[in-house]
């Protein structure tokens, strides 16, 4: 693939674990947790890619590395051919603007003491974007809320409305890539449907590229054409959504993940939900 918008190449990230003072004095090395291990992924412009996996498989760490909320230990990330990890100053700012993130919990990701107006104005101020007034109104319209919501506080909004504000905040800078970290898992089923419809409509209208992290295979395959399955920090399998729908899955881990999220039947044995690894 030549026209990759975002190219992740052999990315690794480790976190130091705690060591006892005694071990530190003895000069023993810090134990490390390998959160992401040698992951490569190429994302084309306009594509929607899902990253799935269970507890602690490193999918959120990978997403955070992409926006440099974590600095990876090794590997390379290229955006439009440019090395993201080497960007500095204005170039880094431009990159930050073109890759925006929506987090899982809209209760935690919005400042409780700021109005919607101020929440949406902040990214514009940081990036020195003019016409804040019209952009804020347009962003609110675009996520289906309207300007009546502009001077409300997050506590005056429902969960679905808050997540719409979080999406508006991410879109107001007109990014190329939207990084979605479990965007609907905190929402009621019907509200989840509204937000997924909104995301899909926005993607079509703006030609956005999505990278979506989720544990919910149904949500991921609804929104994404392709998915990457991760386990213990490593890539296990790449799949297309039709492959998954037709159960054309080769990897045993992906299979167990598929069964775990197929719902409907209660597990015969209560131990079924025990972590898969």
């Amino acid at each position, binding site marked *: 693939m030549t026209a990759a918008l975002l190219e992740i190449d052999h990315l690794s990230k480790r976190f130091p674990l705690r060591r006892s003072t005694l071990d530190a004095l003895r000069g023993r090395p810090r134990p490390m947790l390998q959160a992401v291990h040698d992951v490569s992924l190429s994302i084309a412009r306009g594509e929607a890619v899902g990253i799935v996996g269970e507890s602690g498989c490193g999918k959120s760490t990978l997403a955070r590395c992409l926006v440099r909320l974590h600095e990876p230990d090794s590997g390379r990330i290229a955006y439009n051919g440019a090395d993201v990890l080497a960007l500095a100053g204005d170039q880094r700012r431009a990159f930050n603007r073109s890759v925006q993130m929506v987090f899982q919990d809209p209760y935690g990701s919005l400042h409780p003491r700021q109005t919607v107006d101020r929440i949406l104005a902040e990214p514009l101020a940081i990036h020195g974007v003019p016409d804040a007034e019209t952009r804020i109104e347009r962003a609110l319209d675009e996520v289906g809320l309207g300007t009546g919501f502009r001077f409300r506080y997050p506590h005056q909004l429902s969960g679905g409305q808050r997540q719409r504000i979080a999406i508006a905040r991410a879109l107001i800078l007109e990014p190329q890539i939207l990084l979605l970290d479990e965007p609907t898992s905190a929402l009621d089923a019907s509200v989840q449907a509204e937000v997924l419809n909104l995301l899909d409509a926005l993607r079509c209208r703006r030609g956005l590229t999505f990278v979506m992290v989720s544990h919910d295979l149904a949500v991921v395959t609804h929104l994404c054409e392709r998915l990457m399955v991760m386990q213990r920090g490593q890539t296990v399998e790449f799949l297309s959504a039709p492959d998954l729908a037709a159960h054309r899955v080769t990897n045993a881990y992906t299979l167990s993940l598929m069964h775990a*999220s197929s*719902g*409907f039947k209660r597990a015969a044995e209560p131990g079924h939900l025990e972590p898969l690894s």
Partner: protein
Amino acid sequence: MMPLLAVRDLTVTFAAAAAAAAGPVRVVDGISLDVMPGEVVGLVGESGSGKSVTLRALLRLLHAAHIGGRVLWKGRDVLAMPDHELREMRGKGMAAVFQEPTAALNPVLPIGLQIEESLSAHTTLNAAARRRRAIELLGEVGITDASRRLGAYPHELSGGQRQRAMIAIALAAGPEILLADEPTTALDVTIQDQILALLLRLVADRGMGLLLVTHDLGVVAETCDRMVVLYAGRVAEAGSVADVFHQPRHAYTDALLRSMPGEGTARTRLAPIPGQPPSLGRPPDACAFVPRCGYTNPLCTEHRPPLIEVEPGRASACTAWNRLPARVPS
């Protein structure tokens, strides 16, 4: 077999706030349900459907509200109990795990002490035995290195560990029924499965009944035997989880299941339920779902459809119960 917990026509009414001129607000309006030993019952509904209030009413934890109906724990009416019996019942009969472990735990006491507090209230164990029991309980809920963790403060634990500690506290007096109010909602989705697996294991090991309040249909599908669907403070329908998922008997459940993404819905528009949930201020004498419903007929607005047994083990309060399409199993 007698149910461990039988709820009959439970109502919860709050006196309206002084500012609003409206009358009293009935948040729970005639809920009935049973929990058998070893059974996992899901109480499902969207935000504001009255599910958490129901759970608190069962333990009489609501002080500002008027609670009507009957709550029978092994045949004894919890709502009519004198205080000393109530104290005995809470903990030994029913114990609760709440949504937000950070808010439910005391931040300035080590978790060991918080477990022992429950033990000293409900058992005759001496201090050394309480400590041993607290270590056992922490082990049982899957906290490793339990004897060292006794002295840990809530802020030193991760979210999942805090919820495990909460469960240990709830288990301390050996309850027969565990009430869990969105026990996994405040947690990272990836920790959810571990906590649910733990709850199911405890139910199986101890033969407890579990009443699980949740908004998450996926959680219900994975963990519950039976489910009770609430809408606007009333039971919309009840039945075994497999039956309800395969053949909904209430238009609300039907619409709710349709709004879920599933196989074959890739890149198609999902169908969210139109409109907003009703405000609970003044329930009309009609089905509360009418403004959002696709199966309305004149009967629905004439009077409120009662909850009737439509087939063995299935109850529905919908006039369209026999017109809803079956869902194709995945």
